[in-house]
């Protein structure tokens, strides 16, 4: 579904490091390849979850 993503690169509170060293990350956005969808659908829970998402969009998933 259309999703708002929020990221934070602050170091994790359980990081045992002695110094505070936040690092940069690189972000890329791709269209989902069909084989990734096929892989996802190997799990029965995922098939039912995607059915629920289709239901949310009344079958009009674009």
């Amino acid at each position, binding site marked *: 579904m259309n999703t708002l993503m929020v990221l934070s690169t602050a170091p994790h509170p*359980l990081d045992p490091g002695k110094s505070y060293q936040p690092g940069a990350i690189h972000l890329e956005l791709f269209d989902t390849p069909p084989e990734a969808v096929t892989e996802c659908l190997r799990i029965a829970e995922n098939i*039912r*979850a995607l*059915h*629920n998402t289709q239901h949310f969009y009344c079958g009009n998933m674009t």
Partner: protein
Amino acid sequence: MNTLNLLESQLDPNQAAINEICAAGEPWVKQIKRGQKFRIVDLEGNQAVDTLFYNASNALEHYSATDTIRRQNRLYLSAGSKLYSNSGNAMLTIIADTCGQHDTLGGACAAESNTVRYALEKFPMHNCRDNFLHALAHDPLCQQLGMSKRDLPSNINFFMNVPVTKAGGLEFVDGLSAPGKYVEMRAEMDVIILISNCPQLNNPCNAYHPTPIRLLIWD
């Protein structure tokens, strides 16, 4: 597997200020004051008790599973555990526990999660999220605080056994609890208790047979 952390209580049920039964599959709401002690008794054994706590004067402060796990470096709850809020305050301390281990990873069952985990036709089945929503909408204590479905963070599942495998998998398995086992905690602030006595029938968290629980409060 670590050894279970068992600790019995010296409190006498006959001296309790409140002694109530919550029927199988039902919600329950109560306010307790700082210093009061609160016990949940698993009357018939293996009954998951989905539980949330809120600051009694400000529901924006509530139980936080992530803070509770992170601050104590422990995945499971038992005697000695503090239950932390999203503001970093200790809301309650577990002071006695004859079960030995309680879950705070598994979350509450919901109509939605039942469709995903089990089958699409499971949507109408009675579930903890609906119990929570009903209480938030209709219980006078929840209404006074203006609570709604936005006030549903991740919960505790008292008496529920959700072992984490070495590979990081979660399993919902038959419980460690048994008839008469209890968990008891002391309130460190005035809190609202919101319980769903879990009605789940699709996995062994209630041994496929939801049962009543007893709730006691001492001054």
